[in-house]
């Protein structure tokens, strides 16, 4: 599924990741914990191959950081769903089109788009709000739109970079419940967080990273 083999990564001569090795299995739910600047986002970026190791190797499904070509990257990313603290929605289009965006860029047919978008919006409980714009939604709702967009291509894993970082406790729980539900349906989740509350409430395997070094599990 996802494997890090002795990953060392330097950016501008400073060591960001230091000898990281771990593996995430099919359908797992894994937390990635660590203080600010520890390297959580950097690990996620290696998985969607926005960044490559200086040494070592990252393997995601049948793609390897050592061998992947520019042409293959879009196809790797279509197998991943990524969500962020700041949602990254497009403010110039409504909920439906934000979600449909992920299908349109793959050249999907419009009847297929309509069917799939309605299905994932129902999944995150936003069917009613499909014509609203991101600015008209609450933070939790915006993150649900982002989740809908992330799952529309049936990814094998959701990469979540502090998805509850901008949300209050109640809304965070809402988002966590959706991620849990998606995970129960078979999709793996790798979620970076430093919220003790969430880590206490949801018991999953946890990777701890500090200063670019992975602590022993």
């Amino acid at each position, binding site marked *: 599924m996802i494997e890090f083999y002795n990953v060392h990564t330097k950016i501008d001569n400073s060591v960001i990741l230091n000898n990281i090795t771990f593996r995430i299995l099919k359908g797992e739910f894994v937390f990635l914990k660590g203080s600010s600047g520890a390297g959580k986002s950097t690990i996620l970026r290696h998985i969607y191959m*926005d960044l490559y190791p200086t040494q070592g190797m990252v393997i995601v499904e049948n793609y390897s950081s050592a061998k992947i070509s520019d*042409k293959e990257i879009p196809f790797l*990313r279509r197998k991943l769903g990524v969500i962020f603290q700041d949602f990254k929605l497009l403010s110039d289009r409504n909920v439906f089109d934000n979600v449909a965006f992920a299908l*349109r*860029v793959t*050249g999907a047919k*419009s009847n297929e788009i309509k069917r799939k978008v309605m299905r994932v919006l129902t999944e995150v409980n936003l069917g009613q709000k499909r014509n609203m714009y991101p600015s008209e939604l609450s933070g939790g709702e915006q993150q649900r739109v982002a989740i809908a967009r992330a799952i529309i291509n049936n990814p094998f894993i959701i990469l979540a970079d502090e998805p509850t970082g901008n949300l209050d406790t109640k809304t965070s729980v809402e988002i966590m419940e959706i991620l849990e539900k998606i995970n129960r349906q078979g999709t793996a989740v790798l979620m970076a967080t430093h919220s003790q509350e969430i880590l206490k409430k949801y018991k999953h395997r946890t990777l701890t990273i500090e200063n670019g070094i992975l602590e022993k599990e």
Partner: protein
Amino acid sequence: MNFWFTIREGFKGFSRARLSTFISISSIVFSLFLISVFLIVSLNIDSWISQLRSKLELEVFIDRTKSDNEIQLIQQKINKINGLAEINYISKEDAAKRFEKEFGQNIYSILNSNPLPASFVLKLKKEHQNAQSAQIITSEISKIDGVEEVIYQKELISVIDNYIEILYLGGILIIVLLITITFILLYNTIRLTIYARRDIIEIMKLVGAKKSFIKRPFVIEGILQGVLGAGFACVAVYFAVKLIIRFVYPYLILKSEIFAILFVLGFLIGYLSSWMSVRKHLQTY
């Protein structure tokens, strides 16, 4: 679907970098307009000059003492020379008639005899209607025994030849300069649009859009700007020409090819500048 999505995204670029879009379209309109002014001017000068050139005649005066038979021989020799389109014989009698027509007086009544020489009036083939060819042909004819003198409007033809080149060269330089400026402006507009749309580019990358798919809307946008600019320029040229014909110079020639040239130029400038800008500024992975 894919196609319309791309077109729609291309148009959205317009509203993102509104000011620079406006500036680059204006500059396209402006330079294409100037280019067509140049084209129209040269088109008109060209047709005027080729009229002038086609009027170019060599007059070959024959030695007065030559008999009709000898003159026929001379004509045969002239006939062999390359580059002549037409040979007309003007006999002494014809010359006298011409004289009377031009000056209103019979030459015999003034001089009692006809001193006018017989001559040939030669027209040159189109490709030889220039100073150099006229010079060569003249010197060849001059060598023929019995030919006294060859005359033609030497100054006029060499002035045309010398200055036209400078005029065209200057015009072409200006055109190249204008195209370059327009190109740079458009290139920069696309750069700004790319910057203004970095959010959507980031998301496209995240959700797995292919490189070409991400780039295409920006290239489409460049082409739209180029073609739109060409459209405006055509309208401006059309009305400007109408006004000039109406109020200034009724003989102005305008060919529809000029509009085609403007569209092709607009398209090419738009396409190439945006393509280069995208290549340079849109690092996809």
